[in-house]
């Protein structure tokens, strides 16, 4: 019974993996097509397959590393810091990630500022501003 369950689970996982791999493969294919049209070079199927396989394995590695980093920092959630640590090897990648990180941070700050304002307004007004605030915050 247990073995059957495990076997079924294995199969499930395996099929799940396959689906993920297929998704990656599809995305890699699209990207390669873009690059091909851009640089006017051809990509063979094997190349795309190889790239997608490598990408998949690297993603696995990244995930493990990220988990390790988070655990190393005694956290249970993976943070942008972990991601930055992961990307430190490649300078350009690191820069890119840092910039995006800053953008996101800024955006979050702005959001927080808006929420604070809304809360204050709500406190002043009772009902209508709350509705308006809710609508606004949704935006």
């Amino acid at each position: 019974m247990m073995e059957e369950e495990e076997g079924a689970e294995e199969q499930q996982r395996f099929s799940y993996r396959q689906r993920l791999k297929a998704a990656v493969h599809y995305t890699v294919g699209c990207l390669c097509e873009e690059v091909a049209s851009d640089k006017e070079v051809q990509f063979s199927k094997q190349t795309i397959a190889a790239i997608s396989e490598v990408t998949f394995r690297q993603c696995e590695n990244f995930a493990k590393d990220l988990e390790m980093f988070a655990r190393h920092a005694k956290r249970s959630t993976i943070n942008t810091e972990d991601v930055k640590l992961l990307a430190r090897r490649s300078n350009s990648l690191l820069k890119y990630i840092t910039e995006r990180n800053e953008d996101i941070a800024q955006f979050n700050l702005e959001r927080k500022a808006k929420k604070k304002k809304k809360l204050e307004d709500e406190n002043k007004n009772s009902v209508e501003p709350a509705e308006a605030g809710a609508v606004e915050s949704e935006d």
Partner: protein
Amino acid sequence: MADSYSPDSEPTTRTLLRRVLDTADPLTPRRPRSARTSAQRALLETPSSKKLRSQTKMTARRRSHKARSIDRLAHIQAGGHLEEQTPRTLLKNILLTAPESSIVLPESVVKPVPTPQVVQTSRRESSRGSLELQLPEVEPSTTLAPGLLAPGRRKQRLRLSVFQQGMDQGLPLSQEPYGNADASSITSSLNLTFATPLQPQSVKRPGLARRPPTRRAVDVGTFLQDMQDTSLALAPPGDSLRTPVTTLPTDTVLEDTQPFSQPLLGRSPTVQHSLPCPSHSGAKDVERAVGHRTWSSGPRLQNSGPGKPAQLMAGKVEEVDALALGFPNTSSNISGEDGVEPLQNGVGEEAEGRMKEGLSMREVEEATEAQGSARAEEPEEHTEVTEAEGSQGAIEAKEPEGSSGDEDTPGRTASPELASSTPEFLRARRLQFPEPAPPPSTAVLTSEPPETLSARLPPRTRIPGPRPRQDPYKTGLNHYAKLFSFYAKMPMEKKSLEMVEKCLDKYFQHLCDDLEVFAAHAGRKTVRPEDLELLMRRQGLVTDQVSLHVLVERHLPLEYRQLLIPCAFSGNSVFPAQ
């Protein structure tokens, strides 16, 4: 039949077994040499037939059994026929296959047994004798390099024979003379008596006899001396037995395990003794003759005649060079090298062509590249030994030796040059490799900024300059590069070694950056073992199956754990041992 062997005064296991076999009633009719033919066969038949009745083909087997049994009676029962395996046969086989004498037993026990039994004609005796004869049988096979081994063995035998003469008063020590060199040497090396060999009896089953391992009797005194002294014979002249074998393995082993090969000690060059030159050369000659290094020693040995004193000095100088690597203030290398150089330029090129062991070669080559010293062998040995032992802390012993070399070389001032020569040497060591003697300067130049000696010798590019600030930094890399070339087992170009150093440099930089980042990631400023474990996990060394502790136990021998762990936890304050 009564086996007429003389009862031993001290019954050994073997003799007791024999007696048992001889006197016990033959329950199974396997008794050899018995006159009972039909009765025997009848007896043979019954037990065997009883066994065989359960099997098919009884008659055929009986007949074959008879024949077989008789055959077997005449020979040692090699085959494992089930019917034949009786306790008696087992004991017989034991007696036949076990070595004649045990190492533990005093020789006196063994001796009386073989000598009277030599004459015996009984099969057992002869088989036993054949066992004893295994020793002389073994000899011819071990004459591998008789030219090389003989002199060493001769010398060894001298000591052992003296020793054994004391033991065996009155045994046929006539085998002492070199005529029986091999026999006595081997027997002595096997810790067996002299009496046993040289019995020209046919060996019935040589394959069954276990060959005792050829062990060379270790003279503990010389061994300890070797450990403490360098290959320079500080020992009394009688101790010419400084077997290179004992030094060599320790050298290589010690070389490998040195973390840093230059414990810097501030030694004044004032400590100087004068080495006895003849004994020194004698020791060296012995070592060379034994040929544990298959240097192309022929031409070099020829040099010994004319260039001997210079060679001696060169040898000592080489050693001193090696010492100087570790001891900046030790005796004058350069000065010694100066004197020797003219002699050795030609041979130095030869020497450079060889790559015995990367480490030793490297050191020697570096030392010799400027000198062109012919004494590559000696210095290599010496440098190895000195290197190894230096790291072990037996520095005091070497110091005098090194400085004695200094004394011998006339007209050397050198202490300022010494100090300069050591950084020179340190730099030269990084170079590693067989460089032609003529442009040793280029060799040095390529790796380090060229520093030329002040007017001593043009090819000598040593500079009494300030020690470069990278010196400790590069020393470590140099060490690793040397290890690399050692394990490569092939000669390596200087450029490739530089490349290796560069790569190692980058690798370590990267490593330390990672450690720093990991520590910062955890909000710390100190690198802790957890950071290192994370690093190793990323490297793939530590996995879910293999933990850090497993790796530690696997790779870090206990002795070094005791050394390294205090270092690691010292909080960055580590000082070399004084």
